[in-house]
């Protein structure tokens, strides 16, 4: 997988840049496949985990207005990126593995190589770039709808949403936002490499493709969360100003 990552990055930056059409196709494919599951998932997640539970907790202190501040931590820094990554890995990533695995089984990849077309350049690079871009962009979408879930939770508690926005914007800062977007972009890279690798090395007939998808999604999930932990730790430790004072 590391070799594939290296090859992908090298052939992505080295001309000729012949992968434009495939890139756009994959981008639209991931967009079309993921927007609806992501919409439902982020609203549900935002409404209940940070929304309801935290609102319950804060209501006990009569401090429901702090919910907005909590959403900076909850939605922007943590939940929106990982729900985003889980949905992308589960929906777009599995589709990519199934697609590439099918091509591998039908020996289309070998045929490409015989024709002198580099499969890494023509298949992996566009998927890699498209998933990175789409995961990064979907992060913004996910955190908007996560915050919408928080607004729902505020309204359920019969509280005005003005204070929610006030504490949200007081606590929100650019470090959290770029951290979130950078993190999801790298999640996209992990998903693309794992899923492409598993698809391109699928073998063993009918069960092989299914098993490749299975392994790809398990490895992608583990990778995402292990990376998430390391990234959050580094971000918080190197930017103490975003966690030092409540605003």
């Amino acid at each position, binding site marked *: 997988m590391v070799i594939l990552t290296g090859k992908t990055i090298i052939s992505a930056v080295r001309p000729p840049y012949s992968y434009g059409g495939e890139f756009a196709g994959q981008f639209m494919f991931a967009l079309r496949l993921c927007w609806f*599951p992501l919409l439902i998932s982020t609203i549900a997640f935002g409404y209940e985990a940070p929304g*309801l*539970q935290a609102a319950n907790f804060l209501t006990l202190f009569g401090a429901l207005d702090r919910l907005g501040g909590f959403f900076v931590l909850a939605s922007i820094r943590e939940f929106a990126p990982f729900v985003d990554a889980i949905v992308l890995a589960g929906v777009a990533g599995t589709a990519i593995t*199934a697609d590439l695995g099918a091509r591998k089984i*039908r020996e289309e990849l070998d045929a490409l190589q015989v024709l002198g077309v580099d499969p890494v350049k023509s298949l992996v690079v566009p998927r890699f770039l498209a998933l990175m871009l789409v995961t990064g962009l979907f992060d913004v979408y996910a955190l908007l709808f996560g915050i919408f879930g928080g607004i729902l939770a505020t309204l359920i508690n019969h509280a005005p949403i003005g204070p929610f926005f006030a504490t949200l914007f007081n606590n929100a800062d650019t470090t959290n936002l770029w951290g979130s977007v950078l993190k999801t972009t790298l999640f996209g890279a992990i998903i693309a490499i794992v899923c492409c690798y598993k698809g391109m090395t699928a073998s063993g007939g009918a069960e092989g*493709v299914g098993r490749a998808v*299975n392994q790809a999604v398990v490895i992608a*999930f583990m990778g995402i969360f292990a990376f998430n932990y390391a990234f959050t730790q580094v971000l918080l430790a190197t930017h103490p100003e975003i966690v*030092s004072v409540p605003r």
Partner: protein
Amino acid sequence: MEDLIAVPRGWIEAFGEIVKFCSKIVGEVFRLRAFRFFGETLRQAGILVVGSTLIIWGFVFIVGATCGLEGGYFNNQNGVPAYSGVFAAWCDLRELAPYAFGYMMAAKVGTGLVAELGSMRISDEIDALEVMGISGVTFLGATRLLAAWMVLPFMYLVSIGASFFASYLVSVQQLGYVSSGGFFVIFWEFQNPPDVLFSVIKAMAMATMIVLVGIYYGYHASGGPVGVGTATAKSMVLNLVGVHLIGMLGTQIFWGANPRAPIGG
């Protein structure tokens, strides 16, 4: 206009098919037909234990560590580092342990079922079973569901433990904002047995849904080796949406109107 209605109508039809098939499997289990193949059930339970346990515990452990990390920093920011235990108790037990369990179940067990049953369908093994007079739904579907019900509650209880352990490690040993004793006082204060029961119910609802969806997509796979891969990918979509919806409903029902906290009125 016709096209506009066609898409949602397709979804509703597919959903109806899934519900019909799943209620058949559940019926087979409740009418005790699955017990005729109890040996197969035990074999499936064994596969589940050997194949999936460690990876699920590992995943829940990492998620628990993330929870502890965010909780430690958040409580320190608000000037109450001693209350990191609340985060471990609520975030792990109520929300993220069921979610992490659901995600990994969907990824490992759900797609595994689709791949396995799908390849059986493609290589006509299921038809062969029917010809031999053994009901495929009972022998392949109901036994797997029963095996899941036998194994998963215990697996889930241990994975709650794994997430607690991870949160403890991160909050107390790594960040060190709170002493071990202080952590546990708050930690045990903010949870009680019904909370664990609710959490198990939530996770079991997710697991049942995932196993049923996996069996459905595997049993109805078609179109050669490619079809198995596509069915596997499709099952993930439904599983992810379902896990989030069940999580939301569970929280709303169990904790929506009653925070079950040892403070306030």
